[in-house]
């Protein structure tokens, strides 16, 4: 049955092979993309890891260094890529990306034109997309896409220069999104969008993260009439060796917003190409 054609499946069920691109997970905020190579090693704060130890293990495995430290080996996903790449350049984060994809109504089969700079070859998706080098602000999009694009995404310093060309590329009722860090850029873009676009909306989206700690309520003190909570024991990821039924006191789980959080990435402006009567 075509439904279960395993040749096209996304599956992480197989084992790591020589030549695979994997994500090495050190901590929740430290991840690296590594190409597995039989004779290579990885060296970090946890010690020295031999790639050859990794070959043949399943994805998701925990592997050890010569010093007994460990990391996890994960299969690459776009979400993990945004975490790997986020240290290098000022780019969109998963909250922005996921919102854009949904709001632009991108589904398999859509033609999406995007301008920006991206390292496609390393991620291995260069077989699925076509990359061209072009000055979009100066020259606009190439004529070959005229009227064919379902969506256009702009990540440019002066997007208003590219908007008229973007409009020509779009199918009727096609969607456009422009990402700009500064409100002045947004204002100029919206001004230009008013000719030929409708449903113009601007958003900002952020993700607020929470940290979770365990507070142990010590019952031996209850008889006094004062039950005091011990100061919170920090639970770092990955967790230490402790199981749920460790001791007699019952832990209370506390959640609070993380102290450090992102204040701004950029504004997302969306618009739909308005219809001509005779289309």
């Amino acid at each position, binding site marked *: 049955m075509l439904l279960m054609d395993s040749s*096209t499946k996304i599956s992480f069920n197989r084992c790591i092979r020589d030549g695979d691109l994997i994500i090495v997970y050190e901590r929740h905020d430290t991840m690296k993309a590594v190409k597995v190579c039989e004779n290579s090693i990885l060296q970090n704060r946890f010690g020295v890891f031999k790639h050859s130890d990794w070959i043949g293990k399943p994805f998701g495995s925990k592997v050890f260094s010569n010093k007994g430290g460990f990391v996890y080996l994960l299969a690459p996903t776009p979400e993990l890529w945004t975490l790997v790449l986020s240290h290098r350049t000022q780019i969109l984060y998963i909250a922005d990306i996921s919102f854009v994809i949904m709001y632009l109504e991108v589904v398999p089969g859509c033609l999406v034109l995007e301008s920006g700079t991206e390292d496609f070859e390393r991620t291995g998706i260069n077989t699925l997309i076509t990359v061209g080098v072009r000055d979009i602000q100066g020259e606009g999009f190439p004529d070959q896409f005229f009227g064919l694009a379902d969506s256009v995404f702009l990540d440019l310093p002066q997007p208003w220069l590219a908007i008229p060309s973007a409009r020509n590329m779009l199918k009727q009722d096609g969607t456009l999104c422009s990402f700009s860090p500064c409100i002045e850029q947004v204002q100029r873009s919206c001004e230009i969008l008013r000719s030929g676009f409708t449903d113009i909306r601007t958003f900002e989206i952020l993700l607020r993260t929470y940290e979770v700690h365990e507070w142990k309520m010590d019952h031996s003190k209850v008889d006094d009439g004062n039950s005091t909570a011990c100061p919170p024991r920090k639970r770092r990821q990955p967790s230490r060796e402790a199981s749920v039924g460790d001791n007699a006191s019952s832990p209370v789980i506390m959640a609070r917003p993380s102290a450090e959080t992102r204040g701004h990435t950029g504004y997302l402006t969306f618009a739909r190409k308005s219809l001509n009567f005779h289309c």
Partner: protein
Amino acid sequence: MSENKPESGPTVNPRVTWEGCSVLLDINDGDRLLFARLSAGSTLKIGNKTFSLQPLIGCPFGSLFQVESGKEKPYLSRFIPPTEENNVQDEGGCQLQEESRDNRAIIDNNQAQSLTGDDIDAMRRQGATGNEIVEALIANSATFDKKTQFSQEKYRLKKQKKYAPRVLLRRPFSRRFLRVDALSLLLSMANVTANSDVLVLDMVGGLVTGAVAERLGGTGSVCNTYLGGTPYPMEIIRMFNFNNEICKRVLRCSVNDLCAVQNETSEQVSQHEDVCTMESQSDEKISLSVSTEEVHLSSKNGVSDLVPENELSTTGKTCKTPKAGEKAPKEAIQSWKENGFSSLIIAAPEQDAWSLVKDLLPLLTYSAPFAIYHQYLQPLATCMNNLQLEKMAIGLQLSEPWLREYQVLPSRTHPCMQMSGSGGYILSGTRAYSNTSQS
């Protein structure tokens, strides 16, 4: 590159409506949103008048219609706003520096307008268009010229909405229980992409299942699972206008059947079949009354939470649409058991997250991502803690999406006055391999 063939391979968004498709009707620029199914007999009520939706069939999504008062019945007429309207904000921008008017001289005593209701009815009977009535109201307003430019724009808009309401024909989007950014994050964090096998526990009416199926675009599969013997309702899926290829990849299977050992499966499957038949019959009944469904906005901001109200429509018979959510066949269940699912999404705003996750996570392959939505923080905090203690997952993150819309107009740019207070919380992570887990 292959040409667009509607029924084969990945599907592309259809651009034009057809008889029987679901649409979203946007009345007066977001004031009111309404789902409808287009057919010769379907109608729309605005104010105290009813209009046929027939003129909308065969028009592109994004088409705008305005109520025209014909000599007989009023009707919806396709309409292109003149380009001057689009630029009026910019012209206003140039003159803004010279605006010297304000409202100090205007007395709000309801006596500024000299046209009466009878006058307006008379104009209608003579065939005046909605726009002509609006212009007449402006001409007969004693205070109009004294208003600032912005006030004039607001006045014109208010009259237009009342006397010449507009209806925008839109592709349906359904955001009842989940804010759009929360839903989009679930899909991204769970890495829902073409050729995935996604396990979904959906207690939000089928919204997540539908969004996943849309993203799969006719590839892979989505298994809508449920505890106990009765599948959860999934009627929102009908709004998505899915074709056969997408529908047949939306399957249902109980958690028991997914977890069951080989021998037990067939017994439970036959019990299961009876339940499913009953359920699909009641689904049909629901669809008749849900074909026109009113959706209220608490503000002009279309992304705030929407509250549904069922309205009995005058549509008559339901048009035949392919049905999603068939019972999963044995081969599918077998394949999922052998390979594992490539991701998991749980959207059960009123259940305990941990008790669901501990049964469902083992059904994923290792290194597979998952995302869990909840309206409350605490159950996810507890779940996160337990996942860490049991070493079932890594890369755990507990987040809250924050979304704000801006009004961008010359000299009037600021965040919108209204905002959604909470989009819920999402716990995401990756299933980790450990020696103690069963494969």
